[in-house]
């Protein structure tokens, strides 16, 4: 597709923040879009877990008719390492609309929103073989911090990607937790959706 047409069709899209009161309107479409690339669907609770608590960190790309074309779902909360950590949990763009920078735009909006809300860092996982997804995030500034062996249910390995937004993030420690937290900080556990979480990355678009 030429750049011009890509621009044009991108222009038709509307990027909007999710609103909890419109769950009935949007959630079925969000579920459908994300489940499409998963070996196992998430229950509705997973979506509500994110959307009820961090609906304002969810952005949707809608076409002129209001159909859902792409979505990004995030959370932002204190991590036990002491940082205020944003997490990009789900990102998907309809197959017919990939390659137009829609996912990039959605992720940028999410990062901006999290930065606005004082996030220290933003993390996510993606399959090591998903070059499109890796490129997307790495172009924005993410680095690979860990390789996670057999991270996904299907036995595939993941990279943990991290973006620092603030200086001093690496040295942050949880407050008032003393030694226990020191130990916990040493814990090298997965911070993400984990093996139960299916492979999400397949849903990301190529650039």
């Amino acid at each position, binding site marked *: 597709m030429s750049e011009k047409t890509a621009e044009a069709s991108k222009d038709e899209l509307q990027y909007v923040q999710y609103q909890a009161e419109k*769950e*009935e309107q949007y959630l079925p479409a969000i579920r459908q879009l994300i489940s499409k690339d998963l070996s196992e669907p998430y229950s509705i609770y997973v979506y*509500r877990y994110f959307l*009820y608590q961090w609906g304002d960190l969810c952005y949707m790309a809608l076409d002129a008719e209001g159909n859902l074309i792409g979505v990004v779902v995030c*959370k932002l909360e204190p991590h036990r390492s002491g940082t205020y950590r944003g997490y990009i949990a789900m990102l998907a763009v309809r197959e017919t609309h990939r390659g137009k920078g829609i996912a990039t735009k959605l992720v940028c909006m999410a990062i901006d929103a999290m930065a606005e809300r004082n996030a220290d860092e933003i993390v996510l996982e993606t399959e090591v073989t998903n070059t499109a997804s890796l490129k997307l995030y790495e172009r924005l500034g*993410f*680095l*690979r911090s860990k390789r996670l062996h057999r991270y996904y249910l299907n036995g595939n390995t993941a990279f943990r990607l991290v973006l620092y937004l603030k200086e001093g993030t690496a040295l942050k420690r949880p407050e008032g*937790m003393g030694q226990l937290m020191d130990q916990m900080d040493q814990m090298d556990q997965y911070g993400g959706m984990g093996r*139960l979480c299916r492979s999400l990355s397949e849903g990301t678009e190529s650039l």
Partner: protein
Amino acid sequence: MAEDRLGHATTCEDHITPIVNHDGTGASQEVRPAEKRLSAGLPLRQAMKPPLAEPKTYDITEKFTKACSALEVGQLVKDEYFTLFESIGALEIMDPKMDSGFLQPGETLEDAYDTLAPILPEELISILDQLLCHEIAWHTGYPLSQTLFTSVYIDKLLWPEPKTFEQAQFYRGEISDDRRPGLLLEVLRAYCLALVKCCDFTIARITSRDYFEEEDFCTHTYNRVLLVQTPMDVFQRELDAAIERLEDHSEMDIEASLRGALIARLKFRKRFLSALDIDFPIDYIRHCWEQVSRKLPTISTTHQLGKVVPESFSFKIQRRLASTVPPRPIVELEFKDAFEKLQQLCIDCDEATRFVDIEPDPLEYQSFLWAFASRTPTPLPYSRAYLASLLFQESSLNIPLIDLRSLVLPCSPVLDPTNWALSPPRNPMLPKPPRLQLALFIDEFVERAGQCYLDLWTALGQNRCRLRRMLTHVVTGWDQLQMDAGIVDEDIMRVVTEMGIREQVLEYPLTTWVYHKKLWMIEKVVLLGFEQDIYLHDEFAGMYLFLSSVTGRRRDLLTTIKAHFDDRKRMFLSQNTPEALTNAQETDDGTRYISSLLHDASGISALSSALSKFYTKLNYLNLLPRPTRPFSTEDLRYELRMKPFLTLTPPEVYPFADFAAQVQPYAPPFFDSPPPSFSEALRTPESWLEIEDSVKRAKEEFSAVKKLGAKAAKSDSVAISWVKDVQGVLASCVALGVAVAGVKAAVEEGEEGRELGIRFEIPGIGIGKRYAEGWVVGKVVKS
């Protein structure tokens, strides 16, 4: 948070144990005699203990419906302990993709496969091979529910749980005589029983060591007891009886090739079971895996005789195993792949058995562990646990002490055995003899260092991704040890000064020793990062710079140590007594190890320095891809990269300004057209000479390492892979020389301000395109 850690309501990050455990199912609940196990003080994710309470049922439908009516659609009712982990574990009943109990219209709950129906010999061959595929798939990390437990035969044997061994049949209760299983089914039964016992041994072995549930291996047995209480010889007897009956031609007319194929499979299973036996006497393990290996070729060559019986494996059995997870597909591992993995398992375990015969020296152990962890394909969890169980057997070896002696205290008065023979004065008010004091200091330190050593060894037994991450934690532990070593060193230096023998002892020996090991581990972390594709291409210059700086410090330490060894030798030679001459010889022998380390560290430092400077040039020449990164800055990325090392003492991490000055020597704008200062520098021979010199030096140093040999490097037990490694690094040096020449030529031929007309290709990981996985050397391609 504190309660979180203790209770089970932890966040999803705390454990990824699947929800299946919540319904009370879990690994075999039979208790084994406690196995001797040294535990490492490292964060390890272990299987969760299942709750034991009896379930009670209450009908809350009415209350629930009423309460729900007060909620908005989408409103989430949760307390603060309800985590993402739990929300992910939730299922929607009657959704066929989530609810494993859901039946499509007309679908039956179970398959109608008859486990007593007679089977053909060729069908039996295929069933046995399919079972083997599932067993190996399980070894690679998939749960039993998607592998072996999909076999209708295995299911019948184990469920309902047989009260006695005899009850473990393909049927329960009474059956009529005409339904009694014939020879082939009896053969299948014997094989399956032994297979189940193999699984029991496998779980016992793996869980006796540190591993990561679900990531490395799944131990869940879904309330099936894997014949834990039945002793080994019972299974052997069943197999023997089956072999005997097959060999007896009068019982059944079977074509010779099929008969042979079946017997080969039973004999393999017998050997395999015996090798997996956790009580296998260590004195006999040397050949046990080789004996398994010898049984393998026949299985492979006769595999095509089989005739598949797909119905004997069922997707539906899962329903009864784990009702709280969505239905998951049967894992399909091709026979060819499974067979290769099985072969590899035998080879790796056979390699591990060599451990019992190697020289009892922690540094040889270290080399062995490193080489084992570096094997390709990477050893399966079982093989790693097998080696770990050999390593952590009770040993009288004083591990840190031997290492200390080799590196910093050659023939030292500090480690003189007579120090330990002295008694303290009767009157506790009197000072202890200085030599006894030395012995006590060393004892104290060695005990303190033991745990750190254990942690290092434990890390070396993990999967490669874990190894890298765990090493960063181990480094932190050694960093603390270094501080403690400093205190003991003060005491040691005070005593040896009082004794007037200070010149015989290396300054601050314990600190030096700890620091050396710590730096070595940091280097490994960086190299593993390259090996695991952690760094982006435009980060190479910075990461090799860091590596070069860390190794440079280690090289400096080793230079001091080497001088001390030389001094000691000179001193012994000047004394000219028989004892001193022996010591001189011993010190001289020890110097070979130090020399090997010194050459190696110098080589690493030179090569990484050359790579750093080279990749810096490539960055300016726009030969490496570089993302635009609108959300990030150079210093934030640097902070993230250096995170594991920021707290170390002494500091290993350059301040950002110093770092930037080195990887961006030609003032910004870095990423636009190269600054004039760079274009000029590019054309001066000096800027290339520096790189060429480093490459040349690296080559000389590694050649010296190679010449000193595996024994000097305390890698005698793994000499073959050691030589291969050294040759790999040497080849990397050569490749770098070629790449540098290529770029230099393109720059010289090209006109200023013009495109260079070349591309630079970086070889990916694990495809055999790198001479050494941690040393990334690209090549010039004409564009």
